[in-house]
């Protein structure tokens, strides 16, 4: 029998489906990550809204980024750390599964969970009177889904370098820190100047500014600077994550 691998497309697809199934069967993970953004958005941007549809639209741009952080940070960060400690990653790594398939499956699954969370807040925004042209919706959805990538890589880096309990704590700290410092819940212009400076180090701030620019809100600083900063943060996170994956004996 000749040595040959299974068709990689099929392997990646089945691994992704299994990963998503795993997430959806864990209500203690799935429910908070899908529902929390909708609850926050519904409360702050719809129920307590005093600024009408414009304010609801502004919040939609940044809460959409918030919806991507949960699945990415917790699915990857805590998920990878738990599966590394249990020996599951080791089992995958001695199998013929290409290393990339494990990571891609987790990314696809995080994006799918984020998509479910986004559907809920998009629906609420319509109730709140938010209306965009189709092109604006398309761009906004693209930014909100792309937002999964940098957060997932940060989560991956945490998961490969910290234990399960430490990873959960770290993921929580990043989840809250990125949301507040990135201006995802409240505009950063109402915060002290030092916090506005720290915001530049967070991917959430740049993603929020990109999303705001799409709906016509002038961004802080230039769009190009935000894109460049985002690419830089993503590469740095990927470098940390891959280094952890290579170094880990498991």
């Amino acid at each position, binding site marked *: 029998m000749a*040595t*040959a691998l*299974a068709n990689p497309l099929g392997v990646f697809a089945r*691994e992704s489906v*299994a990963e998503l*199934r795993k997430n959806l069967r864990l209500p203690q993970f799935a429910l908070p990550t899908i529902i929390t953004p909708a609850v926050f958005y519904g409360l702050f941007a719809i129920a307590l809204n005093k600024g009408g549809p414009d304010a609801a639209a502004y919040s939609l741009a940044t809460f959409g980024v918030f919806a991507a952080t949960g699945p990415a940070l917790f699915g990857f960060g805590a998920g990878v750390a738990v599966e590394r400690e249990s020996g599951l990653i080791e*089992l995958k790594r001695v*199998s013929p*599964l290409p290393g990339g398939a494990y990571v891609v499956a987790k990314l696809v699954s995080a994006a799918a969970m984020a998509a479910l969370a986004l559907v809920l807040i998009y629906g609420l925004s319509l109730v709140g009177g938010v209306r965009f042209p189709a092109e604006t919706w398309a761009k906004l959805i693209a930014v909100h889904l792309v937002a999964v990538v940098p957060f997932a890589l940060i989560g991956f880096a945490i998961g490969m370098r910290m234990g399960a309990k430490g990873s959960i704590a770290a993921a929580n700290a990043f989840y809250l820190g990125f949301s507040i410092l990135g201006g995802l819940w409240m505009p950063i212009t109402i915060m002290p100047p030092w916090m506005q400076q720290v915001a530049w180090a967070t991917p959430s701030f740049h993603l929020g500014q990109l999303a705001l620019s799409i709906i016509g809100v002038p961004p802080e600083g230039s769009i190009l600077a935000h894109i460049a900063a985002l690419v830089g943060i993503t590469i740095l996170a990927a470098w940390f994550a891959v280094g952890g994956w290579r170094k880990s004996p498991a």
Partner: protein
Amino acid sequence: MDSDHMQIVGRLDAVTKKFGSHLVLDGISLEIRAGEVTALLGPNGAGKTTAVGLLTGRLTPDSGKVDLFGLDPSRPLARARMGVMLQSAGLPDVLTVRELVTLQSGYYRNPREVSETIALAGLEGLEKRAAGKLSGGQQRRLHYALAICGQPDLLVLDEPTTGLDHEARRHLWTTVREEADSGAAVLLTTHYLEEADALADRILVIAEGRIVADDAPAGIKASVGGCTIRCRTALTDAHLAALPGVRSVARSGAAATLLVADAAAGARALLAADPALTDLTISAASLEEALANLSTSIRKAA
């Protein structure tokens, strides 16, 4: 059987591996051949799992060479014909037996039918059970199913029967033997001489990171097997050690422990030398006792 002409599927060649300053493998060479069950036998901490880690591409050697189907084992292609059962692997609690076997089968080009894998591993009736709801023994059988689902040409089993009851252990031995008889190479690590003896065509004894013996089971049993005789006796250590068939003597106060090749001959000689001895017990030597004896004799010879 002409072993020179048997196909070699995996090889460690003068491999050393350190963790920190601890030398775990000290220049190990071994070959795994098709159609043969090779047992790596040694006490805990001897370096068995590290050797498996190197062969499966999870670890890289500090020096020496590792070869898997002619390739570097860190490449997925090298692992395309291998199935591995690790000592412990936490499977996702919420996926079912059938889902996990199906997923793993998909990693291979020519997998078994999922139902066939499940039957071979003795998991019929548990297909729809979540992995988290399986008993310890059932989880080990699921690990075994994941190792054989790809019809591998090399099956690597790291302490496969730990946590299995007697009947499940016998069943596993039978199916592993069938894998080898149909042409697969099997590498098995164990710290049970009984298991290596029941399954293996060839036993490599590993102690302190080195292969200290490499022989068919009968040869290994002759050198590391034997019995332990315990008794209270007035005879001196020197006198005891000089009795026929006695390999080693240990003592605490009046209680002496002798390692002997043949229990009956040893007991006869002992009783003849000291008719007044008391508290005589005879038991099979544990692997640790036998290996301590084996490595002592090797050190003496060196």
